[in-house]
């Protein structure tokens, strides 16, 4: 950065330095998203006792690029009487929201794009914008199927955002910060410091479950994928999209899966903290590898749910969000608050 400042002056160097950092964050992310699609196809195939995509390159490793080229070279069809501006804009919104959340996510105490005080709040705020991409995509296509999909997705995302927010409030309470690095570090302190019991996973276990399930619902993945229920409304909100805009929707969906998994790992599973005691040598040290392992386990779960559970009915989804998750989180916030001020507190 100092090198750039020397040649370009302060402001321009600042802008270019952050641009470089953004590229360095987004390119690996996009690549991992591409391979997540391949991993999903292979794992689903394994669970279905099929072989899956293994033709393009060794073990099908070039399959994501083959898919990408196919999407890029396809024609973008805009339906008759569609609202053109909104139609083109909505995939951009949804991808923007999925990628810009990564600006505040730390990968280890030193490796992050920015370290802001209100990082958690930023992630909640920006990811709540993602629903616009879906509702506008559903509306702009001027098709009843896509509109129904958009309406379903919106209702679902608004309902689960509440439970998700309340689950995060408990995390904020026990760590006393909205900053991700502080949240992870706070999980290394307390009565059970340095062991798996000081992570938020066990004391906040109901919140962890609520967050995990709400995360699946927020990303509109199976078994909560009523917004693209193939048997009822063809493909939901993106039924009118083809070519590159459709690829953007897919990219955003998988990037959101990555985001939710990373957030769960950071907030409940201790981020880059090691599950082993400190004196175990390299196994006991905190490192980014632990974060990656935790994220991969959670992502495998995402794919596993898709292969296992049948799709929820719409009223069941609403009931789960409003009548089960919301009361659980509200009660557990109260329990945690009492626990924190009681003599049995484990956070001091």
């Amino acid at each position: 950065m100092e090198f750039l400042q020397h040649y370009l002056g302060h402001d321009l160097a600042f802008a270019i330095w952050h641009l470089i950092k953004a590229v360095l964050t987004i390119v690996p992310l996009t690549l991992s998203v591409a391979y997540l699609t391949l991993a999903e196809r292979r794992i689903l195939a394994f669970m279905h006792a099929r072989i899956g995509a293994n033709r393009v390159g060794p073990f099908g490793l070039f399959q994501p690029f083959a898919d990408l080229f196919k999407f890029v070279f396809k024609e973008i069809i805009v339906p008759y009487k569609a609202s053109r501006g909104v139609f083109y804009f909505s995939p951009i919104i949804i991808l923007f929201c999925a990628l810009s959340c990564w600006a505040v996510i730390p990968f280890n105490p030193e490796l992050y794009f920015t370290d802001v005080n209100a990082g958690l709040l930023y992630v909640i705020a920006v990811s709540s914008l993602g629903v616009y991409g879906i509702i506008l995509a559903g509306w702009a296509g001027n098709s009843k199927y896509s509109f129904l999909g958009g309406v379903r997705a919106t209702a679902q995302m608004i309902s689960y955002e509440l439970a998700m927010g309340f689950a995060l409030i408990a995390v904020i309470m026990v760590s006393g910060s909205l900053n991700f690095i502080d949240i992870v570090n706070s999980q290394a302190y307390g009565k059970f410091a340095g062991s798996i019991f000081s992570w938020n996973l066990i004391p906040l276990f109901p919140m962890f479950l609520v967050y995990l399930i709400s995360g699946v619902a927020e990303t509109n993945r199976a078994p909560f994928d009523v917004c693209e229920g193939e048997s009822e409304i063809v493909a939901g909100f993106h039924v009118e999209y083809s070519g590159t805009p459709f690829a953007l929707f897919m990219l955003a969906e998988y990037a959101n899966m990555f985001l939710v998994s990373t957030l769960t790992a950071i907030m409940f599973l201790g981020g880059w903290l090691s599950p082993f005691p400190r004196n175990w040598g390299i196994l006991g040290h905190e490192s980014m590898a632990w974060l990656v392992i935790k994220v991969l386990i959670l992502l495998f779960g995402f794919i596993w749910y898709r292969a296992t559970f049948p799709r929820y009915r719409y009223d069941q989804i609403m009931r789960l969000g409003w009548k089960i998750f919301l009361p659980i989180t509200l009660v557990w916030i109260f329990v945690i608050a009492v626990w924190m001020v009681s003599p049995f507190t484990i956070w001091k």
Partner: protein
Amino acid sequence: MDIVSVLFYVFAAILLFSGFRVITAKNPVHAALFLVLAFVTSACLWMMLNVEFLALTLILVYVGAVMVLFLFVVMMLDVDLESLRKGFWKNMPLALVLGVVVLLEMLLVIVKNPVVTSVANVDPESKISNANKLGWVLYTQYSYPVELASMILLLGLVVAVALTLRKTDKQAKYQNIAAQVAVDSKTRFTMVKMAAEVEEISSAENKQETAGDKQ
């Protein structure tokens, strides 16, 4: 001019433009979208004043929740654009008078009070977060107003539920989840033994042929 003031003018211009488009856009959905843009740009302006908590809460509450519901309703209602335009010129004088009054009131407030240079009085280098400071003030100095405001909000919530929930409505149908969960295979599925019915194949074929002939 440094980069911050350039950004300020850019955001302010977008804010003014989107605010103007909210009232001039023909399509109500587009008007709602411009309102969203106005909220987002004003959040960006707040962010430049280093009040990140308020800025993010504005996005979270107004853009992420209120405007989504608003957009939802606007999309579901099939608004007749022609009937909206009816009586535009008839109501114009009254609207103009009201608009001028509101404008004068706002100008009065701005002129009477000196320009506030730092609204939140925040130190950008401080490691204590905005949320932390705001929480201290809200729950110590202003705890009674906060309680009062939350009671009023709760009252609004209860009233809204009371207005929409009509248990007396005979036509309303409810899901009984306990009954749904309690079913077992015997209540859902009954095996009925029937004697096998054997029909002579040749006669069935004859019938089909005659039906085909008629067509």
